């Protein structure tokens, strides 16, 4: 019980953080009690909750590509991000629900701020672009967005005792791997675009 109290105290200031700061964590739902002896930690719960919001914004960005991109390959690539992350949101939601934690509605991304996420102004700007201009900006922003997700994984593993529960461990590694791959591919697509300019 003492352990539980400490977790709650430790997370209280986090929920109160200013949401407006780009790159800051903010707006997460309240933490429910974690049973003593559980392998998962508050940091794991908040990683999953925050990543749902982070993914939801990536999906919003990806759906823009369908109508605004000038490159068939990029449209397909964005569709892949959309399907991958939609499915991952379900996985994260199940993980949280299985542990009696709050599952943020995926529409919460407008209120939850996580590393690499776009500001409302950046998203609005992206939605005005078309063709190669869209592609370039999409790639730049999605690279940053993905780097944010990777930073979230790094933060998770840097937190003592976090990331050990096997489902979190495998999922966090997968996010790191898949998004690193996508960053590599986006850098290559960006380089190809720059080369064509």
């Amino acid at each position: 019980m003492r352990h539980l109290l400490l977790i709650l105290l430790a997370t209280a200031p986090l929920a109160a953080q200013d949401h407006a700061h780009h790159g800051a964590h903010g707006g997460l739902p309240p933490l429910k009690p974690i049973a003593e002896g559980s392998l998962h930690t508050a940091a794991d719960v908040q990683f999953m909750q925050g990543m749902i919001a982070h993914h939801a914004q990536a999906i919003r960005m990806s759906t823009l590509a369908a109508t605004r991109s000038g490159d068939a390959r990029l449209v397909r690539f964005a569709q892949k991000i959309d399907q991958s992350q939609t499915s991952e949101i379900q996985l994260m939601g199940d993980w949280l629900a299985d542990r009696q934690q709050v599952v943020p509605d995926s529409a919460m991304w407008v209120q939850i701020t996580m590393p690499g996420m776009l500001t409302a102004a950046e998203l609005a700007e992206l939605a005005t672009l078309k063709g190669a201009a869209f592609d370039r900006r999409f790639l730049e922003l999605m690279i940053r967005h993905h780097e944010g997700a990777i930073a979230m994984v790094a933060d998770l593993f840097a937190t003592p005792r976090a990331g050990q529960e096997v489902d979190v461990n495998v999922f966090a590694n997968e996010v790191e791997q898949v998004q690193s791959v996508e960053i590599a591919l986006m850098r290559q697509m960006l380089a190809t675009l720059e080369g064509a300019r």
Partner: protein
Amino acid sequence: MPRLTARLALAAALLAAVPVLGAQTYPKGGDPRDDLAHGMANAGVAIQGMRHLGTAPKSAAFDSTRGLTFVNSDLAFRGNLVYQGNFAGFTIWDVRDAAKPVLVAEVPCITSQGDPSIVGNLLFISAEGTGNRNDCAKGGVQKPEDGMMGVRIYDVSNPKMPRLVKNVQTCKGSHTHTVVPHPTDRNIVYIYVSGNQGVRQGMAGCVAGDDPADESNSLYRLDVIKVPVHHPEMAEVVTGARIFTGIGPVARRGGRQASGGPRNCHDVTAYPAMGLLAGACASAGLLVDISNPEKPVRLDAVADTNFSLWHTAVFSNDGKKVVFTDEWGGGTQPMCQKTSMMEMGGNTTLVIGADRKMKQHAYFKIPTAQTDRENCVSHNGSLIPVPGRDVMVQGWYQGGVNLIDFTDADKPYEIGFFDRGPVDAPRAADDTTRRRGGTIAGSWGAYWYNGRIYSSEMARGLDILELVPTAHLSANEIAAAKLVMMDEFNPQSQPKITWPAAFPVVRSYVDQLERGKGLPAGRIAAIRAALDKAEAANGAARRTALTTLAGQIDGDVAGSSDAERVKTLAAEVRRLAGK
């Protein structure tokens, strides 16, 4: 800016080399795998080209479904024993009776993801998860020095009582590993370690860094463990295979260089007889020369924006093709639904040229739509030793097990399958009382070993299957495959297959010429009759009959649309005559 130009050229080369490739159309329905009943033990089954011989349910220690905690992972084979990894330990099965495998040992030891390899009396187990401990116990790692990320080595000389000999720690853990024999010294094996975690903090010699070319950087390398077979306690990391340097454009990040290329492989498949290794390395497929296992040299790298995660590879037996798989969705997600993209989450076939560069050809994915309750994506498999063709068996998690012919790199096609319905009942879209995803289950890997197919079912146990003849695979081809026997088999260390001189081998080529219309029906019938007659004869009479037949087949070469196969047939008949 010549350096920048060179970088851009390399980036373009990685991607621009990808043409529009053939992929199947979306499943139209009407597949026997559609609408199978759900259930853990009593799910509906659809099967073609195979017969299900038996299932060994999980042993008591692992008989639980709780996320990934107790799932089965990969397989290794030696003699009559099958070594089955599990995220919470491993199991050894005696499979002499396929209908009733006998439990030899169950060894609880929390070790995600527990991929096994066997070399003589040594069993190697991959340990990656940050909750794995030196002492195997549960409860997670309280002090960093108690953590075990690397390769566990067990002595299984008494398979009933495996003994942990050493935990070899590595900087990035071991998601998978691959056995690479020493080129000449049978007393030494190398273990190539694919580790996906970041660099561990607080372990001596482990250095995180951004620059792949930096020799002190622990991130951009495959750790190589050298194992003296008779002194496994002396096994240690001897070098790092730096096969990632110079892949992808280099981006400047905060004034430092950051690679846009991979820093690890998910899985590498060695083909020691060819001195080759196919590295399925996250963002790229690599071809690597491993003729000196301590100094591997990258020959080529291919990228593809349709691939989420280059996951694993299987070479054709002649080493001229390689099938790479894409683990879209990580294996825990349902990526084989009717809305899932067909060129993603499947295989791609690459042809390896004489210049030892790879050229990507078609995609292949199971041509059936699975449900949203079934985690499904391309996963592990191995060759089935059918002479004259490139055939493999592969696991697709809850997409089941299937058989694929990839003889024509542009037209891989399915020739059989075994699929169960989902573990869980369907869930209505508006049902908020149940989880959205299903129980994690399905075939982690399906492999051919000494006449049978073994599939490691993550939740249901160990499935054992055998081939049955169909229009796509004849009784002779199956009989020929069954002639290939191995003492030991680790799927990621691919052996060179050779067939004995035998009638089923010869008849396989005849069957293939008939199927592909490489010879007229009259000639097929005449050759078969001559083979039957020769087989009924003995000694010199048989030799004479076969030699005469070979001469006649030589005469068929010129008129055949498949002259190479006719030549091979003649050569096989001569080899049989000389036996």
